[in-house]
C-alpha cells in the first residue's frame, strides 16, 4: 500500500468492523435474498447515525469532509459482512455527481439529505453491455425524461437518481426525483436480491441537467471511477472474510487423520488467495490515495481489476475448501459467492476496466 493508515483511519476501520459485525447475521441476509425489494434499513440508519453516509461531503452540506480512504474502510467492513445495504455506494455516487457537476441549487436540495442518509440515491449510466453508452437510448428533451435504464442497483428503493441520457446536443447527466409520477420501477429477480436492483422506466418525467457536466461521458466516467474504488474496498473486505473463513476451516476440518490445511492442494490454494487479497488491498488503498490526481483513472481501474479477481477467486476457492458443507444454503459461503459476482458486474465488468487501463496507459504514453 502506498499509505499507512493513521490513527483516525484505524479508528474508523475498527468501529466499522465492530458495528457491522455486531449487526451481521447470515439468516437475516438470506431473508433479503428471498424477498425482492427488502434491504437492511436498520443498518442503513445506523450508517447515517454514525456519520458514514456523510464521509465524503464538505461540512457545508453536513459532511465530514473526509476522503475516499475513510469511506473505503467502511465499505471494506461492509464487504466482510455481506451487508444488505447497497445504498452506501449508490448514494455516494449520486452525491458525488451533484457535488462535482450539480448546480448550487441541486446541491442544496440533495446533498444534506444524502449526507444524512435520509434519502437514498443512485446513478444510472449503463445500458445493455455499455457501462457508458455514447448514445444513450434514454432521452432528455426539454427537461422531460423518457426511456429506461436496466438493472440499477438500489433502483428499487432510491429517492433520486443521476442518469446518463441523450439530450439535444449529445449525452447529458440529469438529476431526477424518483418520487414523481411517471417513474416506474421493476424489481428484478437477481442472485443477490438484497441489492434491490431494478429496471427504471421514465415516462415523460421532469429532470434537470447537471450544469457542470459539459462532457457528460467524462463526468459519468469520473463518478464511476470513484464508485469503483469504494466498491473495490467492499470486494476486498469480502475476499478477506472468505480467506479467513477458508483458513479457519482448513485448520479444524480433518480428513485422512490430519487437518485438511496440511494438504498442499488446500494449503497452497489458501496461500494464493492471501496473495490475491493483499494485491487487491494494496491497489484499493493506492487508488484512494490518488483521488484528484491525473493518474486516478488508471489506478482506480487497476484497483477494480484486482478487487474483482480477488473476491471472485477467493470465494470460489473458499467454497471448494469447505467441500460439501460449503455449498449448502445454511452455510454463509454462497452469500459471498453471490455478492462477489454482483459487485463484479454492477460497477462494470473486468473487460470494461481492462479497457480503461489500456486507454489510460495509452494516454499517459503520449
Amino acid at each position: 500500500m502506498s499509505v499507512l493508515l493513521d490513527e483516525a483511519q484505524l479508528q474508523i476501520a475498527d468501529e466499522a468492523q465492530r458495528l457491522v459485525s455486531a449487526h451481521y447475521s447470515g439468516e437475516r441476509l438470506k431473508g433479503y435474498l428471498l424477498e425482492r425489494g427488502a434491504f437492511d434499513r436498520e443498518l442503513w440508519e445506523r450508517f447515517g447515525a454514525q456519520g458514514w453516509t456523510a464521509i465524503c461531503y464538505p461540512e457545508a452540506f453536513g459532511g465530514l469532509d473526509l476522503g475516499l480512504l475513510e469511506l473505503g474502510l467502511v465499505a471494506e467492513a461492509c464487504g466482510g459482512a455481506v451487508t444488505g445495504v447497497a445504498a452506501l455506494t449508490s448514494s455516494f455516487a449520486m452525491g458525488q455527481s451533484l457535488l462535482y457537476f450539480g448546480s448550487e441549487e441541486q446541491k442544496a436540495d440533495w446533498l444534506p439529505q444524502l449526507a444524512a442518509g435520509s434519502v437514498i440515491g443512485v446513478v444510472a449510466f449503463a445500458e445493455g453491455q455499455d457501462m457508458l453508452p455514447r448514445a444513450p437510448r434514454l432521452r432528455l428533451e426539454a427537461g422531460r425524461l423518457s426511456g429506461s435504464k436496466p438493472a440499477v442497483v438500489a433502483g428499487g428503493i432510491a429517492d433520486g437518481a443521476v442518469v446518463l441520457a441523450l439530450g439535444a446536443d449529445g449525452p447529458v447527466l440529469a438529476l431526477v426525483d424518483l418520487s414523481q409520477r411517471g417513474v416506474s420501477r421493476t424489481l428484478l429477480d437477481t442472485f443477490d436480491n438484497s441489492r434491490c436492483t431494478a429496471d427504471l422506466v421514465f415516462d415523460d418525467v421532469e429532470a434537470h441537467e447537471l450544469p457542470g457536466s459539459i462532457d457528460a461521458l467524462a463526468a459519468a466516467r469520473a463518478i464511476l471511477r470513484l464508485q469503483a474504488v469504494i466498491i473495490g474496498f467492499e470486494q476486498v473486505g469480502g475476499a478477506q472474510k472468505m480467506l479467513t473463513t477458508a483458513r479457519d476451516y482448513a485448520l479444524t476440518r480433518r480428513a485422512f487423520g490430519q487437518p485438511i490445511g496440511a494438504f498442499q492442494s488446500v494449503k497452497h490454494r489458501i496461500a494464493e488467495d492471501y496473495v490475491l487479497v493483499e494485491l487487491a488491498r494494496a491497489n484499493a488503498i493506492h487508488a484512494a490515495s490518488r483521488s484528484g490526481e491525473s493518474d486516478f483513472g488508471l489506478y482506480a481501474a487497476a484497483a477494480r481489476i484486482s478487487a474483482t479477481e480477488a473476491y471472485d477467486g477467493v470465494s470460489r476457492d473458499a467454497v471448494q475448501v469447505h467441500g460439501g458443507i460449503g455449498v449448502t444454503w445454511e452455510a454463509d459461503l454462497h452469500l459471498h459467492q453471490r455478492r462477489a459476482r454482483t459487485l463484479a458486474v454492477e460497477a462494470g465488468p473486468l473487460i470494461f476496466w481492462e479497457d480503461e487501463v489500456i486507454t489510460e496507459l495509452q494516454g499517459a504514453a503520449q
Partner: protein
Amino acid sequence: MTDLTAYRSAARAWIEGKIAEFGREARRGLTPAEDLALGRRYLAAKYEAGYSGISWPRENGGQGLSPTEKLAFDREEILHGFPTEYFSISLGMPVPIMLRYLPDGWKQERAIAALRGDEIWCQLFSEPAAGSDLAALRTRAVQDPDNGDWILNGQKLWTSWAHLADYGVIVARSDPNVAKHRGLTYFWVDMKAPGVTVRPVTLAAGDAHVNEVYFDDVRIPDAQRLGPVGGGFGVAMETLIIERYSATDPAANGPSIARALADATRMTRDGRPLIEDGRVRERIARNFATQAALASIHRRALLSLEAGTQPGSEGAIHKLVSVRNRQRLSEFMIDIEGVSGVRWNEQATRKDDWATSWLTAPTGRIAGGADEMLLNTIAERILGLPQDHRPDKGVPFNEIPG
C-alpha cells in the same frame, strides 16, 4: 456395428416419440410432485418398451444386452431433458449392488419395481465428518448377540433423493477397534423403518434434492447385510465403480458452446457484437477445444468398450475438466453481460442459464469426487505417484484424534 446402428435408430425413434409427453418443455412449470409422477410414468413406458436395464441380465428384469447398447440409448435420451434424475442413482448403484449380493426372488421384485419407477433406492455413504474420507464414517452398527440383528445409530449426509426413497444401501462402522477402513459393514435398509428420519438440505442455489438422514436405533436383521462383517469398505468401493461409464455432456450440464456463441453475438458493446472481442473469442474457442477433446475421449472409451476393453481415466478427466470449465465460462458470461448479468430465474436449469449454471457449479466440483480427489486418482492410479501422507493409516479408528 450394423446391429448397433439399427439399435440406435430404433432407440432414437422411440425416444423422439416421447419428447412431447416427457421432454424439457413438457416439464416446465410442473410442481415437484407432478414432475416426479411424470418421471415414474416415463420409466414405466421405458420399461414396457424394453429400454430399461438394458445391460442387466434378463432374470433381473433387464434386457441382457451390453453396456454399448445402454450407452447408445443414454446418449440419445440425455438430449431431451426427460425426468430421469430421480432414478439415476437408484438404478446406477444401489439396485445393481443389491442384485449382486441378495438371494433370488425378492431382489428381482425390487429390481423390476425400481426399473418401472415405482420404487427408488438411495445410497447412504457420506457423513458430516466423512466426505472425501469415506472410511472416516461414524454411523455405528452394533450387533445384538441374541438374534444377530444390527442396530444402526448415526447420521448420513448428502443423500440424494432420500426423501423419495423406499430403500437404501448403507455402510456403517461395526468395529471401531480396528483400522478405519477395516471396521465397516454394508447393509440395505428400509427407508420407511422406524427410527429413520429424512431432512432435506437446501443447497446454495435453493435446490433441495439432498438430505440428512438420521438413524435412531434402527433395527435390521443380519439377512440385510451385503458382504462379510468388516467388509463394508470393499462393497462400498464396488458400488462406486459399478457404473464405470455413462453418457456424458462435455459442457458438464451447463449451457452449450453454441449458446455462448449466440449470446456473445447478440450482445453488443459500443455497437459491436461482443463476439468480436478477443477476450470473448478466447474463452469460447478454448472451451470449444476442451469440450471437443472430452467428446473425443468419450467416443474412444465407447469404442474401447465395444472392443471389450475396460475404460480407464476418462471419467476422472471428464469430471475434473468439464465442471471447472463450466464454472469459469459461466462466470465469464455473467461478467460480459454487464449490469444485467445479475438477473436470476430460479426456475431456469443450469443447462439453460449462465447464472444458474454458475451458482450450482461449486456443487459439481465437490459432489461425487472433489477436484482434489480426482487429481489424486489420476496421480496415483494412472501416473503411479505416491499416495498422500495419511497419519491415520493402520491406526485403530477409536484412537484417531477427532
